[in-house]
């Protein structure tokens, strides 16, 4: 059997309904022919999470940087019934709309959305930041760390991530409070799909994939991080002492610099 699935009857017959999408961008002053980056936030987060630090920093290093809010998040159209497939559709649409082959960067459950998008769009490369690939293990870990915030999600309510899960103690409390206040929620069906979802199809166009994370992440256990990295034939790049939201935490500069360094090497090598 080939790993390619040609017949996509359901996708053809029932295309995803379009929804207005928020895309925030920062572009370098001088166009240097570098591939554009598309940041995909995880459940509950919007494009704002990347606009805070990472977009501007990537642009200052010469990469056109964009972030999309998945439907129902941030400034995109409300979509309480959104599915994982609709999120993947949003990402592929934005990526294909950029002028050149795009590097997809997914954070949290956004990394799973990116992994699915890689099967529908030949990305230049992909980066999975603190990836949440779902499954019952993820639920178990979340229930242990934050039972009060997780239990409602099991019955279709909102998943409440605590500040302690997302950020390290180094982040000033006022910032942490402000960020946590901006968190929204993912679609009910998408939340369930995170538990019951099937494995993403293999990526098309053989992109290189980098996995980033923190051993002190209280959402993604190190074991899960290693499993995702192994899937793509590598080991995760670790940033000890940081929380789950690497793009908002106090030392946000370290992971984005490592990501861009890797990308510079990767795009010159190919």
């Amino acid at each position, binding site marked *: 059997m*080939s*790993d390619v699935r040609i*017949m996509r009857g359901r996708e053809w017959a029932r295309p995803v309904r*379009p929804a207005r999408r928020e895309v925030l961008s920062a572009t370098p002053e001088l166009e240097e022919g570098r591939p554009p980056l598309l940041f995909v936030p995880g459940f509950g987060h919007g494009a704002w999470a990347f606009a805070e630090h990472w977009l501007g920093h990537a642009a200052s290093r010469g990469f056109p940087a964009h972030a999309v809010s998945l439907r129902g998040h941030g400034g995109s159209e409300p979509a309480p019934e959104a599915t994982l497939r609709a999120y993947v559709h949003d990402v592929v*649409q934005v990526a*294909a709309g950029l002028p050149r082959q795009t590097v997809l960067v997914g954070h949290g459950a956004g990394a799973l959305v990116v992994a699915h998008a890689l099967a529908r769009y030949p990305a230049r490369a992909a980066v999975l930041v603190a990836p949440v690939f779902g499954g019952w293990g993820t639920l178990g870990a979340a229930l242990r760390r934050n039972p009060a915030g997780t239990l409602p999600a099991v019955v279709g309510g909102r998943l409440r991530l605590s500040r302690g899960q997302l950020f390290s103690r180094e982040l000033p409390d006022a910032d942490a409070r402000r960020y946590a206040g901006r968190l929204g929620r993912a679609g009910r069906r998408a939340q369930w799909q995170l538990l019951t979802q099937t494995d993403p199809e293999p990526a098309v166009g053989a992109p290189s994939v980098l996995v980033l994370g923190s051993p002190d992440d209280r959402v993604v256990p190190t074991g899960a991080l290693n499993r995702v990295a192994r899937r793509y034939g590598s080991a995760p790049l670790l940033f000890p002492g940081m929380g789950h939201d690497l793009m908002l935490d106090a030392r946000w500069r370290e992971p984005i610099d490592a990501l861009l360094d890797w990308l510079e090497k990767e795009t010159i090598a190919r």
Partner: protein
Amino acid sequence: MSTSTDRPDPEATTLALSRDGRPVSDRGDTVCVIGAGASGLTAVKNLKEHGFGVDCYERETGVGGAWNWRHDRSPVYASTHLISSRPFTQFPDFPMPDSWPDYPHHSRLLAYFERYADHFDLRSHIWFGTEVIRVEPVEGDRWDVTTRSTGGYGPERTSRYAAVVVANGHNWSPKLPDYEGLAEFRGEVMHASSYKDPAQLRGKRVLVVGAGNTGCDIAVEAAQQASHCWHSTRRGYWYAPKYVLGRPADQVNDTLLALRVPLRVRQWLYHWTLRLTVGDLTRFGLPKPDHRVYETHPIANSQLVYHVGHGAITPVPDVARFGPYGVELTDGRQLEPELVVFATGYLPRFEFLDPKVLGDDSGTGRPTLWLNAFAPGHPTLAVVGLLQPDSGVFTLSHWQAVLFARLLQLRRTRPERASAFAAATQARAGERYSGQVKESSRHWFEVGHADYLRALQRALDTLENK
């Protein structure tokens, strides 16, 4: 990887001589793609993605082939819209913007191909304004490709390639019918390929011959612009609306296909749906279809029956003969049109290739290929896009190109797999991928998109056998 800087340079790389003693520049493992239309572009993109160097030759100065209305061989007219909806038309890994309508206009399609070319950086692989005049097999399953500037200017140049993809399209060489007395007819006669704008019809008595999608589109425009329109068809057809049950008709159809509803049941459902919506066509004077739906190339036109109902289109049978001032029909009626438009289709042509290479030994113009793409005895040759699907063709071209790229990869790494594929090509050349289809000189490459893609999937599975 091939970039703009390592294009063939005859002085530096001449290694061999062609059969007639001219120098040949050797392009090593590079693959040659003929044509930068939809199929050519997806071939360049997928070969590049699989690590091959690619040289693409395009006779025009832009991408988009038939869909670029600036091209002199382009068949599109001002009002051309897609007849398959977006999900069936786009490349499977590069979706059209979801803000576009279900059936985009041809100018949007050109913008889509231009964006595809820029997004995947394909233009640096394309030699524009260069036409291919000869493609000859040489020893080692390699190919000598001779090119020159479009229009025959400048010197000929021959390059040797590891493989060739033929993507020269099949909607540019008009098929003109031969009627008795046509030469004596004093009125204006044109093929649909030279029809561009409804102004050409304004105020005239127009006879449109042919009930393909183009013929029906032109008849509808003539209904609105001409002083009268006759629409001549050989047989009755099923005129499928573009929308049924509030959704694009092909999406409804594929819902049934995805559920693997058998053909007979789908035909019954379709007939039943048409009876409820369009109703009995013979009441409008249209002939009763002599076949079941799905047995001819589908016609997606919601407006034709509407204009027949307004009396702006008079359906008439086939033309028997032409006279100096009029046309006699097979039922004996006489018409006096000022303008006759032949929407009689196009024929595929491969004038740069010996017909025998494509398995057309008797010279009938019908290649004998496996999966409409692979020629027996020539494992490094593929024809991409020689398909008339009941849906969009670009998805099919994409997967043909992927299959060919993977085949070329396996020729290096697992030669036994590639030779098994070659044996299958030999054994299965000429297979058809549709249900029963009414015979016509143009419909021999008609395929059902689901049947065809399933056959491609099986070929890919056997090839990779993971």
